[in-house]
C-alpha cells in the first residue's frame, strides 16, 4: 500500500547485501513470473499475499507445536521426569495429539455471557501475532514487510495484546475471569513502559527505527551486537528486556493473570475447545515473537557471531530458541509474584533503573565510548 | 479522495461526537464521544498537511497531532481516575444521578 515511500529503504538495504549470498526473494520471483504490462501487478500481488498468509499460518502453528513440546520436555527434565515419550519419537507428536483433542472438544459458551465479546476475544491475539511476524527480518532477504518505523509498529501492536484478555474476561461474566483480566490490564500497561524504554535505547544507539537497518548495523563479529557494543548499558537493557517481556507474555513468575491456584485459570476460565486453543496457540507464538525481537535488537538478528560464518535465518532461530530456553527455565524455577509485588517491581525498580540506564547509554553514545 | 471528502468525513464524525455527548448518560460514554471529536480534529490536521500548497510547513501536520494526543491522554487519565474514585464512593456513574455534585 505504501510502497512509494518505502521503496528507497528496501533498495538501499539490497544494495548493501553481498551479491553472492543474497538470493532472490520469493516475492520478486513471483513478480517476475507474472510480469505483464497491466493486470500482472494485481495477479502477482494476490499470489504474494496468499503465499504470505499460508507461510505465516504454517510457521506460527509449527512454532507453537515445537514450543509446547519443548516446554513439556524441559519441564520434565527440570523436575527429574522424562516428559512426553509415548506419542512419536521423543514424544514429538504429543502436541499434535493434544491439538487434535482440543479441536474435537465441544466448544460451549456460558449462558450468562455476552456472545459478541466472548467470541471476539479469542480472535485478537493471533491477529496481533501475525502483524508482528510480518515485520521481523528473518534473513537478509527473508522478510514480508519492511516499514520505516518498524520498531514503533511493533510497540504499537504489542500494546494491543492485552485487549483480548480484557474483553474476553468481561464477556465470560465470571468473577475469576474478570479478576484475571483486571490484573492483565494493570500488568501489561505497567510493563509496556519499561519495554518501550528498552526499544528506545536501541533506537538511541543505532539511530534507526527500521528493523532491517538495525540488524545490518550489527554486522561483523559478535562484539558488534548491541548487548556488548554498548558497554554495560546494553547488557542491563537486555536483562530488563527479558524481565519485561516475560511479564508481557504473562508467564511465570509474572503469570498472576491466570494463576491457577488463585483464579482457576484466570481470563480463560470459561473458554474451552477451539476458543481456548486459540489463546493457547497465541501464547506460544507470542513467546517466539518476543524472543525473536530480543534477538534482533540485542543479539544481532540473523548475523553470524563471527565474520567468516555465513549469515542466515538459522542464526535468528538459534538465538531466539536460546532466549525461549531462558523463558522456560524461569517458568519452572521461580515462584509466582504477588500482584502488589509485581507492581512494586515495575514502578519502584524497573522503571527508574531503565530511565537511568537510558541516560547512561546516552552519555556513552555522546562521548563515543562504544566498542 | 480529495480535501473536501476528508473534511466532510471529519465533520460528520465530529457531529456524531456531539450527538453522543448530548444523549449519553454514563460519564465513560461521554468521554468516548469526546474522543471521537478529537479524532475528527486529528483527521483535519493530517488532511490539511497532506493537501498543503507548495512551500507550506507540512511537518506541523505530524507535530500538532502529537500535542493533541498528549493532551487527550492526560485528560483521559485524570477523568477516568475521577470516575473510578467516584464509583468507589457512590457506586454510580450515571450523570443524572450525580446532580448533587455541585453542592
Amino acid at each position, binding site marked *: *500500500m*505504501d510502497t512509494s515511500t518505502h521503496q528507497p529503504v528496501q533498495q538501499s538495504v539490497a544494495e548493501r547485501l553481498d551479491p553472492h549470498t543474497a538470493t532472490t526473494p520469493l516475492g520478486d520471483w513471483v513478480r517476475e513470473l507474472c510480469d505483464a504490462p497491466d493486470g500482472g501487478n494485481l495477479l502477482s500481488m494476490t499470489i504474494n499475499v496468499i503465499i504470505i498468509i499460508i507461510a505465516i499460518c504454517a510457521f506460527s502453528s509449527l512454532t507453537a507445536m515445537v514450543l509446547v513440546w519443548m516446554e513439556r520436555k524441559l519441564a520434565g527434565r527440570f523436575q527429574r521426569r522424562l516428559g512426553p515419550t509415548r506419542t512419536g519419537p521423543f514424544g514429538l507428536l504429543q502436541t499434535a495429539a493434544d491439538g487434535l483433542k482440543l479441536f474435537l472438544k465441544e466448544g460451549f459458551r456460558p449462558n450468562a455471557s*455476552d456472545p459478541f*465479546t466472548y467470541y*471476539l476475544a479469542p480472535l485478537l491475539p493471533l491477529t496481533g501475532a501475525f502483524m508482528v511476524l510480518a515485520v521481523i527480518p528473518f534473513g537478509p532477504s527473508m522478510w514480508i514487510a519492511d516499514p*520505516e518505523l518498524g520498531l514503533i509498529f511493533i510497540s*504499537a*501492536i504489542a*500494546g*494491543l495484546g492485552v*485487549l483480548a484478555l480484557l*474483553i474476553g474476561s*468481561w464477556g465470560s*461474566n465470571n468473577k475469576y475471569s*474478570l*479478576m484475571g*483480566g*483486571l490484573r492483565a490490564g*494493570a500488568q501489561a*500497561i*505497567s510493563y509496556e513502559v519499561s519495554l518501550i524504554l528498552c526499544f528506545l535505547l536501541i533506537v538511541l544507539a543505532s539511530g534507526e527505527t527500521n528493523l532491517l537497518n538495525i540488524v545490518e548495523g550489527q554486522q561483523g563479529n559478535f562484539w558488534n551486537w548491541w548487548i556488548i557494543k554498548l558497554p554495560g548499558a546494553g547488557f542491563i537493557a537486555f536483562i530488563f528486556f527479558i524481565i519485561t517481556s516475560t511479564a508481557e507474555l504473562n508467564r511465570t513468575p509474572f503469570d498472576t493473570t491466570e494463576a491457577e491456584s488463585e483464579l482457576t485459570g484466570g481470563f480463560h476460565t470459561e473458554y474451552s475447545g477451539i476458543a481456548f486453543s486459540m489463546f493457547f496457540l497465541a501464547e506460544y507464538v507470542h513467546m517466539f515473537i518476543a524472543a525473536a525481537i530480543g534477538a534482533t535488537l540485542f543479539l544481532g538478528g540473523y548475523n553470524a557471531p563471527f565474520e567468516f560464518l555465513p549469515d542466515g535465518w538459522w542464526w535468528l532461530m538459534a538465538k531466539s530458541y536460546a532466549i525461549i530456553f531462558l523463558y522456560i527455565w524461569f517458568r519452572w524455577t521461580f515462584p509466582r509474584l504477588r500482584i502488589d509485588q509485581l507492581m512494586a517491581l515495575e514502578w519502584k525498580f524497573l522503571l527508574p533503573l531503565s530511565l537511568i540506564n537510558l541516560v547512561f547509554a546516552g552519555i556513552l553514545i555522546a562521548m563515543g565510548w562504544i566498542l | 479522495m480529495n480535501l*473536501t*471528502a*476528508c*473534511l*466532510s*468525513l471529519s*465533520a*460528520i464524525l465530529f*457531529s*456524531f461526537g456531539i*450527538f*453522543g455527548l448530548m*444523549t*449519553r448518560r*454514563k460519564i465513560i460514554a461521554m468521554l468516548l*464521544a469526546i*474522543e*471521537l471529536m478529537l*479524532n475528527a480534529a486529528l483527521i483535519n490536521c*493530517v488532511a490539511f*498537511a*497532506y*493537501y*498543503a500548497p507548495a512551500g507550506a510547513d507540512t*511537518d506541523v501536520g*505530524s507535530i500538532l*497531532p*502529537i*500535542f493533541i*494526543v498528549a*493532551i487527550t*491522554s492526560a485528560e483521559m*487519565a*485524570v477523568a477516568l*481516575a*475521577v*470516575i*473510578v474514585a467516584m*464509583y468507589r464512593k457512590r457506586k454510580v456513574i450515571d450523570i443524572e444521578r450525580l446532580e448533587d455534585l455541585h453542592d
Partner: protein
Amino acid sequence: MEATLTTDILFYLFSAAILGCGLMAVTVKNLLHSAIALMGCLFGTAGLFLLLDHEFVALMQILVYIGGVVIFIIYAVLLTTHLGTRYLPASTLKYISGVTLAAIVLGLVLHIDPQATHTAVNPDRTATTIDAIGYRLLDGSTNGFLIPFEVISVLLLSAMIGAATIAKHQKPGATNDEDETGGSAS
C-alpha cells in the same frame, strides 16, 4: 501517495469503517461494545493516515489512542460495570436536542468546508520523516516547538501523578485485589 482508483476505493472503505464504528460508538447501549466500536473507528483513522502519508501519526494513533486510552477506558468499564448493569435510555428531549445540535454543527462546518481552496496535492511534497519531527520538536528557535514540547511533558507528568493520587484508595483499612490493581495502573 498519488491518487489512483485503489486509493479512492481504500479511502471510501476506511471512511465507511470510521463512520460506521463512530456511529456505533455513540449509539450502542453496552459500554464495552461502544469502546470496541471506538477502537474500530480509531483503527480506520490510522488506516486513513497511512493513506495520507502520515505513518508516524498513524502508529502514534495505534500506540497511544488504542493501546493506551481505549485500554484505559475498557479498564474503567471493567471496574465500574458488569453484564447485569442496566443501561437507561436518554429522554426524548435529549435525543431531539442532541440531533438538532449535531445537525447545526454539521451544517455549519459543511457550509464552511467547500471554501477550502488548495484541493490539489502538491506534486513536490515529501512525507515527513521521523528525524524531521524530532529536530522540529527540539528546535529552540521561533520555528521550533521546544517550549510546547517541554510544557506538554510537564503536563503529562502532572496528569499522571494527579490521576494516581485521585484513584488511590483513601480508607487505610479496607483493601482488596481490584482496588490495588486499579490504583497502581492509574
